[in-house]
């Protein structure tokens, strides 16, 4: 006689320690095996895009900070680049250098959170605190620069709000020398741990073609073995001046595009960011960072889609201007929003514990998913 079985619906979230914010995943389970995942989002929805309709272009910047609150610098960076392209203005060289330095520091800080919380999701608590300890130093650098630790309002259209602190270059160099050995420590503790590899290798495999079709970008796309980085493939700012590699997933512990690859690409990217920072600090030019800031921003009628390589992937701003001081429409393509859409594809047939591993590995920030 066959036993009567039925599917169990399990709500993961909105309050759950591993959904990285307020996300609800509706899981349909067959025992512990997942048959379907439906993400329900919108718990943090503030309708940022509606707000912008009533604001001038510079006033939008603090709102961009609050989308991806782990990579605020880069959100501002992307917005500034977009509006500058719409206006057709050039920024002084020093501004570009400082933006790149801040952007790469932000990338390291964001990856540290991603890696640390990923360790936490898998059950290793200690790497999480190690990562936060190191991130703390980056936040101190930001604090030194603009007074804020999380939401900066530092990168403005056409320039920056302040010049660097006189001590910044020295402290930044100190951080680079301090941080290199810490990556190795992290590898010893977590990356090459047998249990960690067992939990993440061959889990949540994302093939390259599927990834492109789903619009996946950033580290997640690179982990699928596709060498695609907007810093090289669609250069903005001054990234073409620097020498750095684009790490891609090799499948060295399992299959290309599994959770371990997504994790490891981030570790490798931190080293590349350190390289960029070192080069930029070496040739940082002198100049005035506020001279190019326009007094009144009133772009001509037109539209622009401009994108940058955010720590999580392709962050795009689609801005339509109707010749007023307020933007007519701003639409943000947040990488987290796009990446969450692929959850169902990745999770089918895995176990409940793997959901956590997969969700952690695609590294979403709910502030940006819901905007």
């Amino acid at each position, binding site marked *: 006689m066959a036993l009567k079985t039925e599917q169990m619906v399990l709500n993961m979230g909105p309050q759950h320690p591993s959904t990285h914010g307020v996300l609800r995943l509706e899981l349909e389970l067959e025992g512990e095996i997942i048959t379907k995942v439906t993400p329900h*989002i*919108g718990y943090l*929805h503030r*309708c940022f*895009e*509606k707000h912008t*309709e009533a604001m001038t272009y510079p006033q939008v910047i603090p709102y961009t900070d609050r989308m991806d609150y782990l990579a605020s610098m880069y959100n501002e960076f992307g917005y500034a680049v977009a509006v500058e*392209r*719409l206006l*057709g203005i050039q920024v002084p060289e020093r501004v570009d250098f400082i933006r790149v330095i801040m952007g790469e520091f932000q990338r390291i800080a964001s990856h540290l959170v991603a890696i640390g919380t990923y360790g936490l999701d898998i059950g290793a608590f200690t790497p999480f605190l190690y990562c936060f300890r190191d991130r703390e130093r980056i936040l101190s650098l930001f604090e030194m620069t603009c007074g804020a630790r999380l939401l900066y309002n530092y990168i403005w259209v056409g320039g920056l709000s302040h010049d660097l602190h006189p001590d910044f270059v020295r402290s930044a160099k100190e951080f680079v020398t301090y941080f290199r050995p810490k990556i190795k420590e992290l590898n010893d503790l977590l990356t090459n741990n047998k249990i960690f590899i067992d939990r993440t290798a061959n889990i949540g495999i994302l093939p390259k073609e*599927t990834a*492109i*079709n*789903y*619009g996946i970008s950033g580290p997640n796309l690179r982990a699928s073995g*596709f060498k*695609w980085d907007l810093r090289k*493939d*669609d250069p903005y700012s001054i990234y073409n001046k620097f020498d750095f590699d684009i790490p891609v997933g090799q499948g060295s512990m399992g299959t290309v595009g599994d959770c371990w690859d997504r994790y490891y690409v981030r570790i490798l990217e931190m080293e590349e960011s350190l390289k960029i920072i070192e080069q930029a600090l070496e040739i940082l030019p002198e100049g005035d960072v506020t001279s190019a800031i326009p007094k009144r921003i009133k772009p*001509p*009628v*037109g*539209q*622009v*889609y401009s*994108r940058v390589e955010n720590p999580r992937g*392709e962050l*795009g701003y*689609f801005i*339509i201007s109707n010749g007023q001081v307020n933007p007519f*429409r701003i*639409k943000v*393509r947040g990488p987290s*929003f*796009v990446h*969450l*859409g692929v959850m169902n594809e990745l999770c089918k047939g895995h176990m409940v514990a793997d959901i956590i591993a997969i969700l952690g590995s695609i590294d979403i920030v709910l502030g940006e998913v*819901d*905007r």
Partner: protein
Amino acid sequence: MKTIEEIFNLLKEKFGDAIIELVSNRPVESFIVIAPLEIDKVCLFLRDNEELSFDNLMILSGVDDANGKNVPDEDGGTKIEGGTVSVYYHLESTKFRNKIALKVSALRENPEVNSVESVWRHADWHEREAYDMIGIKFLNHPDLRRILMPYDWEAGYPLRKDYKNPEFYQGMKVPY
């Protein structure tokens, strides 16, 4: 790598009237206007043609054009009558490093656009968002629900220019 004029001519040849015009007098970005009920076929062609191969949909954005007439409504405000809402598609070819923008416009009263979800799965959530925010109905979309707003939000579409916040939602006061 083909320029946008070449692509426009190629599409015009293949699809005829479905391709409406090429808008290239704007600064920064030009785009091709396409009929809303043909967009999925055009997109499929753009993706699968070997010389174009636009395999990546970068962004799909719904826009309220607000080009209708402002008329006063019952409770003293204004609402927009007539005009269009639009959807913009920004495509990219990862092979040829080429980018292109498309636009479709539909009537504001009952905007219907064919879904491109079957061409790029990426469009799924973006179309849901455009439905949620602007109220554009994507035909043939498998799961067209609200995404960011609550599923039972009945006060309209927030990103329309004449949207007004309701006073109550499920008995809770909305403006705080």
